[in-house]
Each structure stands twice: as structure tokens, then as C-alpha cells.
């Protein structure tokens, strides 16, 4: 017996957009307001999970053809890489640095390596979350 999900899917299309935006927002606002790589990643991940729930594995996989294990792995590499980078500058492991850089359009922005670190964290969280959900759902 097929069950249609028209209402759900229609709403979710919008909602997922909100969720993903919120995720990105949380990711960037982390340094000064609640949020950060972790929560951002979790929210983004749960947005993707919502997609999986409302659609199905195949459909979503066509739209997002990533190997989420590798996304997670890439995240870990990014986090550890940004941490280990300090070693080459003879600074203690994990030392963060920041610069103020003036972009052509955006004006002066505060850039920190913490952001790379946080991005690594977020990617890992997304990757892992989706990997777990996907692996279980694919099990027969």
C-alpha cells in the first residue's frame, strides 16, 4: 500500500532550506553566540536526515552523491590538519592564529584558523551522522 507524502514533501522542501540556513548560521555565529562547528554540524546533519526521512535513500543519494564516510574523514583531516599546522610554525600544537583581511567587496573581515578547525568539526559531525543513519537504513 503506497502512502503519498505530498504535503510532507512540500513542506519539508521549505523547512530543510530553513534548517540548512540555520545550520550555517549557527556554524558561523559560534564564536560570539551559541553555536559553533559542532552544533552547526549537527543541525546540518539533522537537516539531511530529515531529507532522508521524507524522501528515500536513492533519491537523496542522487542529489547528494557523496560518500559521507569520506566527508567525515575529510573533516577529521581538516580539524587535525589545522591543529598540526602550528607545528610547522614552531608554535605549540593546536595554536590558532587570526588575521584581519580586507576583502574586495565585503570589507575587512576577521579570519581565524579556528574557523578551519570548526569546519572540520562540522564536516565530521555531518559525515558521521549521515553515515550512521545511512548504514543502518541500508542494512537488510
Amino acid at each position, binding site marked *: 500500500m503506497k502512502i503519498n507524502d505530498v504535503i510532507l514533501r512540500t513542506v519539508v522542501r521549505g523547512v530543510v532550506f530553513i534548517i540548512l540556513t540555520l545550520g550555517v548560521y549557527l556554524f558561523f555565529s559560534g564564536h560570539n553566540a551559541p553555536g559553533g562547528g559542532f552544533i552547526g554540524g549537527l543541525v546540518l546533519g539533522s537537516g539531511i536526515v530529515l531529507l532522508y526521512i521524507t524522501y528515500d535513500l536513492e533519491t537523496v543519494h542522487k542529489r547528494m552523491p557523496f560518500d559521507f*564516510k*569520506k566527508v567525515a*574523514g575529510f573533516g*577529521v*583531516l581538516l580539524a*587535525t*590538519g589545522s*591543529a*598540526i599546522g*602550528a*607545528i610547522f610554525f*614552531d*608554535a*605549540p*600544537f*593546536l*595554536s*590558532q592564529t587570526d588575521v584581519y583581511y580586507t576583502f574586495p567587496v565585503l570589507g575587512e573581515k576577521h579570519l581565524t584558523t579556528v574557523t578551519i578547525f570548526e569546519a572540520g568539526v562540522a564536516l565530521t559531525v555531518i559525515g558521521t551522522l549521515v553515515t550512521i543513519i545511512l548504514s543502518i537504513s541500508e542494512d537488510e
Partner: protein
Amino acid sequence: MNNLLVLPLIIPIITAVILVFLREQIVLQRIISLITMIFITIISALLLNMVQTEGIMRLDFSGWLPPFGILFVGDSFSILLVLTASIITSFCLLYAFSTIGSRHEKMFFYPFVLFLIAGVNGSFLTGDIFNLFVCFEVMLLASYVLVALGGKKRQLRESLKYVLINVVASWMFLIALAFLYGTVKTLNMAHIAVRVAEAGQDPLLTTVAILFLIVFSLKAGLLLFFWLPGSYSVPPTVVQALFASLLTKVGIYALIRTFTLMFPLNQDVTHTIIGVMAGITLIAGCMGALSGRDIYTIATYNVIIGVGFILIGLAVGTETALTGAIYYLIHDMLAKALLFLLVGMVFYVSGESVVKKMSGIIQNYPLFGWIYFLVMLALAGIPPLSGFMGKVLIGQGAIESGSYVLLALGFASSIIVLYSLLRIFLASFFGETTISYDFRKPIPKGAYLAFVLLALSIVSVGVGAESLAVYVKDAANTLMNPSIYIDAVLKG
């Protein structure tokens, strides 16, 4: 600041993640993982010598001075253990190359091993109690996966128990951490030591210390070892060997660190309890080893006996005893790894795990048999093999401090160790063989290589005890005088 200190943790992690991307290239995975471990071995050997010349090293992550940031502290004790762990892992990897099989290798076996060793090394090196928890978790998560890797019926069943018990243990760790933070309001181990000393380790702090004792006992298999025999006998042989040699030792390390650095003051209470627990562990371990009818049971209970024996050293608490405990710890790591590799190989060549159902293995595999004989003697503490120095020094310490009951139990236990392992040797290795030489299952060369290397290290640790003495003595000295550690962390 010394960035070398973080390498034993970070290199395996990065390599492990890279290996995840190289999933299909098995040969490449093997080479990279082995190179990584050798690299870490070299690094830690380097560090060990640096500690001797420059004193205790520390690395404040991001440059935040203790007690505010997290830091790694390398003293002789921790780096000795890192070194031993790295060496053992390299050898075990050699064994794994020829035995683990491509099914496992494609399922990220090497990454998980590397994660495990990263967690282990992190636990040894960290100077922050909450970070210790996190490192434990890295190690544990990797171990959960490794126990269950393979998906056999028995394996899943035992790993479920293993995971659940460890989840509860981690929970208790968190409880203890909460209480610790609630009392001393800091997380840096050296800083905790200072504050505990300031408060004179009052009753409440002692209670917290006892909580930590329970937590680490669960990890170390001190008194609370119930989970150990089941879960250590199900995973693939290499994993068993790694577990037996590394995991409980991390718990032991944590116990020693906790009760020499952070809570050394109320020894009447804490060390008495440790002593009682170690005694019961020894008795129970001996009974288990005596009752064992299959090789895995005997081997796993020997792990428990080893734990009890080492912790006698802590319970006694004199410098000699701690020196002995460190020696014995190193010995036990090497010997238990070898023992489990051998036991696994016995199962492989005979297809049997019940002692009485096999015989005459030594006729087809003489070298294999003699290496078993060697490790048996080493575990029984026969000189000049590796177990001897530790046993002598722990015994000396116990005599000095008058702990005769523990002394008697400890020495009696080595007879049981010998007896139980001798039973395997006589029944399984000696006797008539039923399989002719030509029809035997060949033992892979890599496995032999691992055996021989481990056996050589057991012999050289025993014979060359002097070359280790300077490090071990320094380690014990630091343990006995926590102010050295504290000053190194909090000053300068």
C-alpha cells in the same frame, strides 16, 4: 614546549584517516601503518632520552598555560609505556599482515588499530584528567569496533557485554570527574595534586579518590574483571594481543598516576583498599587460571593475575615497589602480547581451543613451541627473562614495607601462572602429534617474525634490564616525588 610529544597521538590519527581513503589498497595500508608505528617508536625513543637530559617535558596545546589549557606531559613513566606500546603494536601489525585477512583489512582494520594506539598513547601522555577521559573514549570506541569486527555470533555477543560494561565504566568516570571538579574546581592533574595537598586530602577528597579507584579498576581489571575473560577471547588474535597488552595497562597506568600524583596523601585508606583489591584479584585470577580448560581462558586469567601483581607494587607504594611495578608493566605488555599471539596461533594450527584435545604441536613447529616455552618462563618470572626484575623489585618493596600477605599472594600467583601455562605446554605442545609434518598448516612468515621479535624483546628486556634501569628509576622517582611532576607542569 615540545611538539614531538603530541606525535604519538596525532600521527596515528591522521594516518588512520588517510587509510580510510585508501580502503582498497591493502598493501599500501599495511606499509603505511607499519611505517607509522615504527616512526612513533623512534619518536618515543627519542623523547625518552630527551626526558633524561632535559627533565619532564610538556606541551601546552594552543599555548595555554596550565592549569587552563590541556597539555601533554612526558615523564619517563609515560613515555616508557608509549614506547612499549608502539613497539608491541608494530610487532602485532607484522602478525596481522599475514593473518588478519583481506575481509578485515578492507573493513578499516588498520585505521581502527591506529585509533586504538592513538587513544592509548594519549591516555599515557595527557596531563589533564578530562582529556584522559576523552583519550580513554578514543581507545574504547576503537576497541569496541575491534572486538566486534568480524561479526561472528560469539563475538557479537561478548562485544555487546564488553561495550555495555565499558559504557557504565565511562559513566562512572564522568561521575568521578564531576565530583572532582566539584571539589577542587580544576582539571589539570598537577593542579589537582596541588589543591588536594592544600586541602590535606580530606575525607571527601579521599572518597573521590576511591571513586576513581573503582573507575580505573574497571578498566584495569582490578577486582572488577568479570568482563575480561569473555571479551578477550572472541576477537581476532591480533586484537586479543593488543587488548591484553595495552588496554588493561592503560587502566593500571591511570591507577598508578592517580594514586601517586593526585591522591597520594591518605595512603592508609587508599592503598589498603588497593592492596585488598589486588589480593582478591590475584586469588580470583589464579582460580580462573587453574580452572581453565581451554587455552583462551587460561590466557585471559593470566592477564588478570598480571594486573593483580602489578598493583601490588602500587599498593605497597615504596619506590622500589613502584620501580618493580614499572618493570613488570613493561614485561607484562610484551609477554601478554606474545602469549595471546601464540595462543591464537595454537588455535589456528590445531583448530582446537581445549587443552586436552590437542598434542604434539612442537613436533611440527619447533620454533613456535620453544617461543611459547620462553614466554611461559618469562611470565612465571624466571630469570633472566623480562618478568624477573619486576618481580624481584616488587617483592623487595613488599618486604621493606612489611606487606607480607600481598607478597605471599604475589609470589604464589607466579607458581599458578607457571602451572597453568605449563599445562598448555605439556598437553598441547608436547606429546605425540596426530598430524604429520607434511600435512601441517604452515604458520605464516609474518607471524613467525612477530613471535621472534617479541621473544627477542622479552629476552632483551630481561637480560638488558640495566639499560632500562636509568629510565625506570627516573620514572619511579618521579612517581614517588610528585613535586617533580608538579613543578614541571606548573612552573616555568
